[in-house]
């Protein structure tokens, strides 16, 4: 198997893709947004429980490829417990990670370095431009939910 593929589909990703964490619809969610990629038909609902500006719970449901499912799953793990501002900073920083070379990354405010370290496994999508939308789909939905919108498209 080619190196680039191993880079894209690391064990962590295959694991999260097969066994996504927080794959549920919390009863007490008070925000939700749909993320849809019209090109491939991937569709996620992201649910948030926001209280006093903090993401107390975050979960998702839907169907997607290994990359989009793994990214959604990891997103729920790192965003939980963050303030709205921290969650948005993670979104922006993660977006840079997937789309830009290291030296082009912007400053999006204080960001959880440990979380970014874990998310590094998804940076392989940079070599596969058409898959960037997969990696960022649930993140767009999470960001939309925080902003009070009900849908996001990764197109």
């Amino acid at each position, binding site marked *: 198997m080619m190196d680039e*593929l191993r880079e894209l589909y690391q064990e962590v990703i295959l694991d999260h893709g097969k066994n996504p964490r927080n794959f549920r619809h919390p009863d007490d969610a008070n925000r939700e947004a749909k993320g849809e990629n019209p090109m*491939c*038909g991937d*569709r996620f609902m992201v649910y948030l429980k926001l209280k006093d500006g903090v993401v107390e719970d975050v979960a998702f449901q839907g169907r997607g490829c290994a*990359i*989009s499912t793994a990214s959604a799953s990891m997103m729920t793990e790192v965003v939980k417990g963050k303030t709205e501002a921290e969650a948005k900073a993670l979104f922006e920083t993660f977006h840079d990670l997937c789309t830009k070379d290291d030296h082009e990354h912007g400053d999006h405010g204080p960001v959880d370095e440990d979380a970014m370290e874990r998310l590094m496994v998804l940076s392989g999508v940079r070599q596969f431009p058409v*898959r960037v939308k997969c990696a960022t789909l649930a993140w767009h939905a999470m960001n939309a939910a925080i902003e009070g919108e009900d849908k996001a498209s990764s197109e």
Partner: protein
Amino acid sequence: MDTQIALPTSAPTFDVERVRADFPILSRSVHERKGKPGKPLVYLDSAASAQKPRQVIDAMTRFLEEDYSNIHRGVHFLSQTATDQFEEARRKVARFLNAPSERNIVFTRSATEAVNLVAHSYGRTFLSEGDEIIVSVMEHHANIVPWQLLQMDKGIRIRVVPVDEHGVLDLNAYEDLLSDRTKLVAMTHCSNVLGTVTPAKIIARMAHERGVPVLFDGSQAAVHGVVDVQDIDADFYIMTGHKLYGPTGTGVLYGKYDLLKKMPPYQGGGDMIESVSFEGTTFKAPPARFEAGTPAITEVIGLGVALDYMESLGREAIAAHEHDLLQYATQQLSQIDGLRVYGTAPGKGPIISFTLEGVHPHDLGTIVDQYGVAVRVGRHCAEPLMERFGVGATARASFALYNTRAEADALVESVIAVKEFFGA
């Protein structure tokens, strides 16, 4: 069997290696990396768009270098030369479809535009609130959305003929849907996802018994067999040049002349008028009436050469070759555990849509691509059909006149690699 796509009756004499030599792009590799050779291209996405033979590329280059000019409007030498070649292409298309005359052939920019032309011109003139159009559940979005726009405008109703689990059109349901309210049937002649070839002649006859005209979307069907619009008795027949080994920017609308004649213009502009004044403008007769503006001159001429190319190989021989590939690839793929093929209608075209259990088609597409294998993944512009089969997306391998059994093997090997990779 009532199929307008003639299947082979005798062993073909088809030298695929010689054919491949005509397509420069097929000799390239993909994914070359520093110091590492790439993988030979295995192009199995011709249902999305076919590659072009050198004959077409050369003819277009030659035309641009030697004969190019605008058409239908100059008295000068080049304009006459270019017009002659453009109109010769129209005659070639007419022969290709066995149309009664080149007057039946309207050039558009795509098959999509051809459907929109009929929806806009015929639809807005002859359909009104409460009228119904019958389509099938396996239409490409290009044969759905133009009718939905008409629906928004005119309050018509769209009725949908289902397919069975093999992807065979339900003719009984079709018969039940035909009524006094039916004003048009718009149906694919070959599904771009399932490969199903619809019984065009029967569909047309059943509609005609009620005086209803029929439009066929032949975007896929015209590529894989011999289409005879007079035998089918199609009222409108649509195809697209870029899938016929010709250039992009070339769509074809065949129409019965009495229908075309009573249809108003679709777009206004140059080349479609007899005289223009601010008191009133009169329009040319079809097909010019529907060809406003400077057309894709070079590309239409290229399309004519592409059709010549197909004729030179023999369309029945092409169909036989593709049918062999379809059977071989289906057989080989079916041996992979967890692989499901969507569309198993008898006499289908060389299109295989499939899923692999436990692997999303998008991941499959990325991985087989690393092996040089180009397939389409996704919804194939046929979302209602995806819903029908309860699947979010599929992978689709489509075979063309230049594909080989070895390429089918490469597909199978790459899919097996996907399976191993995901432990599926």
